[in-house]
């Protein structure tokens, strides 16, 4: 297969079924490297299903089957000889609700690195990961405390930190801010802009404004007559044609964000 430098990952005729039910049908998208791609759409249209196809998390859902292909560096992730564990080491994931391990802050980051065979200086890795997740200053004096002592927003940034500690190429985010307050949401969005310097990010969001604010590309999903989801539009977010996304207010302060959130949250 081609190994196009511009794209981090691409799907070809990707369909996902739960038993006889087709959840998403014939998705063809090419995700650009070091950009943020948002997947938006109404509830139940298969956004999360599509996202979880990228790191084979759907493998844990019984009755779930995949047709079509997803290419990462020219390799089909659903090829017969592909190890899903290796896929997940290359493609990290941040979940809707913060789900740190019931371990210390330090151990939350060190654990993933250790099981992935990290041999370098662990203290450095932990510090760097926390710095990149904009969390270091808040936790540097309590690294041995439980991750559950942190606030929800801090926990989510910890989850991002542990993901970047294993240095994936792509980070999947499944509505990472939906359980957070507006201020924490803004911090996550700012963080995403930092992260895209090094990583490709694919984010599922319910929040149109968030997609407009934070993403470079947007994939809009819809359900067809048979209730199967599909990508109906995929384009540069700035060119995106939905009327309510045009002229999205510029967010420069937390007050703007709270206001915009109130007005436009779906």
């Amino acid at each position, binding site marked *: 297969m081609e190994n196009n430098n511009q794209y981090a990952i691409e799907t070809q005729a990707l369909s996902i079924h739960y038993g006889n039910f087709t959840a998403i049908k014939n998705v063809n998208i090419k995700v650009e490297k070091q950009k943020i791609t948002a997947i938006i759409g109404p509830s139940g249209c298969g956004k999360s299903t599509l996202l979880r196809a990228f790191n084979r998390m759907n493998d844990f859902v019984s009755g779930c089957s995949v047709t079509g292909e997803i290419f990462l560096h020219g390799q089909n992730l659903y090829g017969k000889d592909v190890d899903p564990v290796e896929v997940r080491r290359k493609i990290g994931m941040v979940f809707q609700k913060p*789900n740190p391990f019931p371990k210390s802050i330090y151990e939350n980051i060190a654990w993933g690195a250790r099981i992935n065979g990290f041999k370098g200086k662990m203290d450095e890795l932990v510090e760097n990961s926390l710095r990149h997740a904009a969390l270091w200053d808040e936790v540097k004096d309590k690294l041995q405390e439980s991750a559950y002592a942190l606030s929800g927003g801090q926990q989510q940034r910890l989850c991002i930190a542990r993901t970047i500690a*294993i240095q994936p190429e792509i980070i999947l985010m499944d509505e990472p801010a939906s359980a957070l307050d507006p201020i924490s949401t803004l911090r996550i969005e700012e963080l995403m802009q930092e992260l895209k310097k090094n990583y490709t990010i694919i984010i599922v969001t319910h929040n149109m404004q968030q997609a407009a604010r934070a993403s470079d590309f947007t994939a809009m999903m819809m359900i067809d007559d048979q209730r199967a989801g599909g990508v109906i539009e995929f384009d540069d977010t700035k060119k995106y044609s939905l009327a309510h996304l045009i002229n999205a207010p510029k967010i420069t302060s937390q007050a703007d964000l709270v206001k915009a959130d109130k007005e436009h949250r779906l």
Partner: protein
Amino acid sequence: MMNFDLRKKPRLAESLIQTLLFLAGILSIFTTLAIVYELGKEALLFFNNPDVTFVKFFSGTKWQPSIGNYGIWALVSATLTTSFIAIFISLPLGLAVAIYLSEYASLRVRSILKPILEVLAGIPTVVYGYFALLFVTPILQNIFGESIQVYNMLSAGLVMGIMILPLISSMSEDALSAVPRSLREAAFAMGATKVETSLQVVLPAALSGIGAALIVGISRAVGETMIVAIASGAGPNFTFNPIQAAETMTGHIARISGGDLSYNSIDYTSLFAIALMLFLVTLVLNLISQWVVNRFRERYE
């Protein structure tokens, strides 16, 4: 205004049920207190005997109250040895079963395996006792030779471990299953294998529940009577050597109280002292395991 009344109304059924529930709670507390009172009263008679001293009781290694030997260690040693063997077998095995059932087994396998384990839990202990004496002991003798006595703590402990296994595995499985799915997903999403996820994320998160299983298991082992009475030996013997015969506290109480005993004799009151000691041993072991569990457990809430 029609019929607008915010005053309290009597709710009979409500208060009746509340009272019943309260009484049910009181009953268990009352029973415990009554047992402790009865044990304490009779044990006091024993310790009031001029021949008996606390020092002798807690330091002696010979138990023959009729001729003035009151060393409780002769019985405690066997209780500790058999219980240790039982836990040594049932904890790792029970945990392995629990991890298999909760993390690996398909629904079909689980629906077959769980009822079998429950059957194991339903076998009467007297059957286990003869199983130990007539089946396990000969096997041990075949393997390790005649140095293994006909009555021995090893065989009793092993079988006791099998008896406790379903208890530990089912309580541990409940604890493992209660660990939120999101934690497993987090681990898998970081490229963890199934083994890494099960042992390094799910197991530590379930440790408080597993600790509870351990505590109940220890209590069962220390308190178990029939298996040790049949298979472990019928005479106090201070030893921690598992291939020897020795009588546990429970086994001793069962044997002596089964014979004829004159009321208020030293043999009779000594049984209550043993029972009180049993209470104490269980309590101390529970406290220790609780401390160990609190030390290592990870909270996920």
